């Protein structure tokens, strides 16, 4: 029999773990939701923005560029890649059906993966990151990795900055408005192209930030490394309610809590099927809340 105090301590430790993992998922899901809310496009090439940022760090690492300079460069690279994606791949398809856009984003993801495969290497490449990421501190009996602290704090700051931008600036309000009624937003004198480009740029910045933490967890880059992040982001935004920005953040944390909870409670011999169990829980959530936790059934005019 495990004492109750130990159980409580275990639960708190796992909650700390879930918070850090959830922060990364939240950033990824928020970027996906941002674009979906305005364009109705599920951008499955969103994961490749993570890849672009991670490879930027890998290449700068080879040149011995200091880490402090790698980070802004990686975020900028992801943002530029996101804007270029829209310009080259999605703008010509403006007004196309949901499925056309979906397939286009899949194709784009494969193309970008192959560019990295051909130009760099199909194999995993190690990236040296600051030692701090592997260190931990002990506070009152809890072990907290520096990576967890940095991830959670960065996510909190990013969410705060984004919320302030969306709620306080006219440009940000225009983004929220465009997600509610795109045509009428144009009638307000807000250019359609600028709203869409901004949505992609924001999704790129968020993916770039998340990429640092994705990279820190795995320590390597490879051409297909964007698949897992985009899958998690998609699941998280579906849990929260596709198209709801708050929902995407909530969904990210819920998904992380499910995964961390299963990691801690599943017996070792079925741990390999953890994602299957996690998706079963997601299906259960959607059974009771088909529109997601914060989704709206259908827009009332």
């Amino acid at each position, binding site marked *: 029999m495990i004492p109750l105090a130990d159980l409580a301590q275990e639960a708190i430790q796992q909650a700390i773990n879930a918070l850090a993992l959830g922060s990364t998922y939240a950033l990824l899901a928020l970027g996906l939701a941002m674009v979906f809310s305005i364009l109705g496009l599920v951008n499955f090439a969103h994961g490749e923005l993570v890849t672009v940022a991670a490879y930027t760090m890998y290449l700068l690492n080879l040149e011995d560029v200091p880490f402090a300079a790698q980070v802004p460069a990686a975020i900028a690279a992801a943002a530029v890649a996101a804007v270029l994606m829209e310009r080259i791949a999605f703008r010509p398809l403006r007004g196309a059906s949901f499925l056309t856009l979906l397939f286009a984003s899949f194709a784009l993801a494969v193309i970008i993966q192959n560019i990295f495969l051909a130009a760099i290497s199909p194999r995993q490449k190690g990236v040296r990151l600051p030692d701090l990421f592997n260190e931990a501190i002990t506070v009152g009996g809890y072990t907290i990795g520096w990576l967890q602290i940095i991830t959670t704090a960065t996510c909190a700051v990013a969410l705060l900055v984004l919320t302030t931008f969306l709620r306080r600036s006219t440009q940000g309000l*225009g983004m*929220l408005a465009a997600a509610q009624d795109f*045509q009428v937003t144009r*009638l307000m*004198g807000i*250019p359609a192209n600028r709203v869409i480009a901004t949505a992609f740029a924001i999704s790129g910045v968020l993916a770039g930030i998340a990429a640092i933490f994705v990279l820190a967890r795995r320590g390597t880059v490879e051409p297909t490394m964007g698949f897992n992040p985009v899958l998690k982001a998609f699941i998280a935004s579906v849990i929260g309610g596709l198209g709801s920005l708050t929902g995407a953040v909530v969904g990210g944390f819920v998904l992380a809590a499910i995964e961390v909870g299963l990691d801690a409670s599943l017996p070792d011999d079925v741990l390999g099927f953890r994602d299957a169990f996690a998706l079963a829980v997601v299906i259960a959530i959607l059974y009771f809340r088909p529109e997601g936790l914060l989704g709206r059934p259908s827009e009332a*005019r």
Partner: protein
Amino acid sequence: MADDLLAVERLLVRYGPIVAVREVSLRVEQGEIVALLGANGAGKSSFLNAVAGLVPVASGRVRFRGEEIQQLAPERIVKRGLSLTPEGRRVFPRLSVADNLRLGAVPQADRAAAKAAHERVLELFPILRERSDQVAGTLSGGQQQMLAIGRSLMANPRLLLLDEPSLGLAPILVDQIFELLARLREQGTTILLVEQNVHRALELADRAYVLAGGAIEREGPAAEIRASAEIEGAYLGIGIS
């Protein structure tokens, strides 16, 4: 004519093979209220949406303040002083009343003018001041219509296109909307009004056009259109009852 604020020539709008507006010509002079009438599906909304840039113009010309605007995007047209209040209010439901109005002021580059417009809107619609922080989607239908018109007025438009402003409103609110339009005219706003409330629209308007099947069926001073409609009874589905 030289003093036309809006001059539309042979405007054609099509959705794929379906022609919604057939070479309609229409003009609005400075200071006028012009009513555009017709049965459901006559092409009234398509006409307004095409003028405002929301749907593409297949052929024809739209001149506003002497310049052709039929190729411009809606966000450019509104900056030239032509605002559309679309059918069905279409306020931003999850933004506050204040934020809806703030977005309405985007086309207005001059800050002092934007502030004056804001004061004017709140004076015209005191309820919007009271409900400033309320989320627009929770307003009543009449309040949402006032917000929608107020939002358009934030841009200080020279020409206001109103699509069915009284649709679905209780009679007392319809009265309020028409009183408001009369006040706007006194304040010098030029209005092109699409209405299913033919009687009220013709009472208010200076001139009127009647659309049927996407084409102009009749045009003239509002009083003439009214007299002929009374004589002919249910005229083109817009009869006065």
